[in-house]
């Protein structure tokens, strides 16, 4: 399942009386990655949450292909947020199996774990994982989601050099298959991508 493009038109974002951005328009076509940059508090996370349909926008429209209704948009989105969603009591394998079932996605859990270098930790409860390892787990979950549009909030935070390289490769592969990725980041993603700077 792939969609033609994300089109954001004249978007205004307000958080608690403060205008984050006004009249923001951009388009990301299938196969493209967009690196979303800007200082802390510029509204990167808010923009991602608006695209995912969590936050209402004050004005403007967001369309994922033909879909613009907020909750329908959510069904197309693969999400990698600030928090890693790793339950301390569950093992990485259990976390991924659950989400694969929930998303009705093809469940190559072992393959996804191997792709992020967690194969040897698959059966260790998540409470023993480091922040970087949890981020890798989140990346594996994103890969399993099978969604066309990936929204990533600080995907490189806490990752080591190897993790950053794998992250870049996974995003690149996703785009190669016609997917779309938007990543809020303070570091270069290490792949060919468009840049959008919020101020």
């Amino acid at each position, binding site marked *: 399942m792939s969609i033609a493009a994300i089109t954001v038109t004249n978007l205004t974002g307000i958080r608690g009386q403060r205008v984050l951005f006004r009249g923001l328009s951009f388009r990301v076509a299938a196969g493209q990655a967009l690196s979303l940059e800007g200082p802390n508090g510029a509204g990167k996370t808010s923009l991602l949450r608006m695209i*995912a349909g*969590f*936050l*209402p926008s004050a004005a403007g429209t967001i369309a994922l292909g033909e879909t613009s209704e907020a*909750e329908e948009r*959510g*069904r197309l*989105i*693969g*999400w990698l*947020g*600030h*928090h*890693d*969603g*790793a*339950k*301390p*009591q*569950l093992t990485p394998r*259990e976390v991924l199996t*659950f*989400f694969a*079932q*929930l*998303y*009705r996605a093809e469940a190559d859990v072992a393959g996804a774990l191997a792709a992020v270098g967690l194969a040897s930790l698959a059966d260790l409860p998540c409470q023993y994982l480091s922040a970087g390892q949890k981020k890798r787990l989140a990346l594996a*979950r994103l890969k399993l989601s099978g969604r066309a549009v990936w929204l990533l909030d600080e995907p490189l935070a806490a990752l080591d050099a190897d993790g950053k390289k794998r992250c870049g490769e996974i995003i690149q592969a996703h785009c190669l298959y016609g997917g779309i990725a938007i990543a809020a980041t303070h570091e270069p993603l290490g792949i060919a991508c468009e840049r959008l700077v919020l101020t």
Partner: protein
Amino acid sequence: MIALVLRDTRLATRAGGSAVLALAFFAAVATLVPLGVGADLRLLARVAAGVLWVAAVLAALLSLDRLFQSDFDDGSLDLIALSPLSLEAIATAKIAAHWLTTGLPLTLLSPLLGLMFGLPPQAIGVLALSLLIGTPSVSALGAIGAALTLSIRRGGLILPLLVLPLLVPAVIFGAGAVQAALDGLSNGALLLLAAFSVAVTCVSPFATAACVRLNLAG
């Protein structure tokens, strides 16, 4: 949806989960009351239904603040909300999992505690039946409160204040049914309890979903 029920059940029953805690709390309160009231078996049998119902409600509330809170805090709720399930279905699954890990075990333990209070066998049957019928309403109403207090720090303290008044009918009809059985009367308390439980359980997923939606946007 079944995957979500199974996962929540698993989380509640793993080490550090809320299921065992709720059961232990229920048993501890029910053990403490006879120590305070004294060994008058007739008196204990009279108060048994009320005490056990209140203890069951409090025990179920104890684990409610984790219903959405832990998923909200660690970002899982965002991911679950983006799944193909509607938020209403998600709420239903979470309520079901909460009932399976608190309401149902409490119901199963209640005959033993009823025996401790010197309830006659017939009244014990009614007690267990009333809990079986009534505890889903505790999970359902509690879910609304849990979803509403998601983004409030220390929401766990406000939650009982919100939910307990709404549970008054369940406690009145549940304990009332047992009293009636003790007195050898037949009354409609169980039927009223069932009606309350069904109504609340049907409405709750929609109210809960609306509250979750509100908090995800917050």
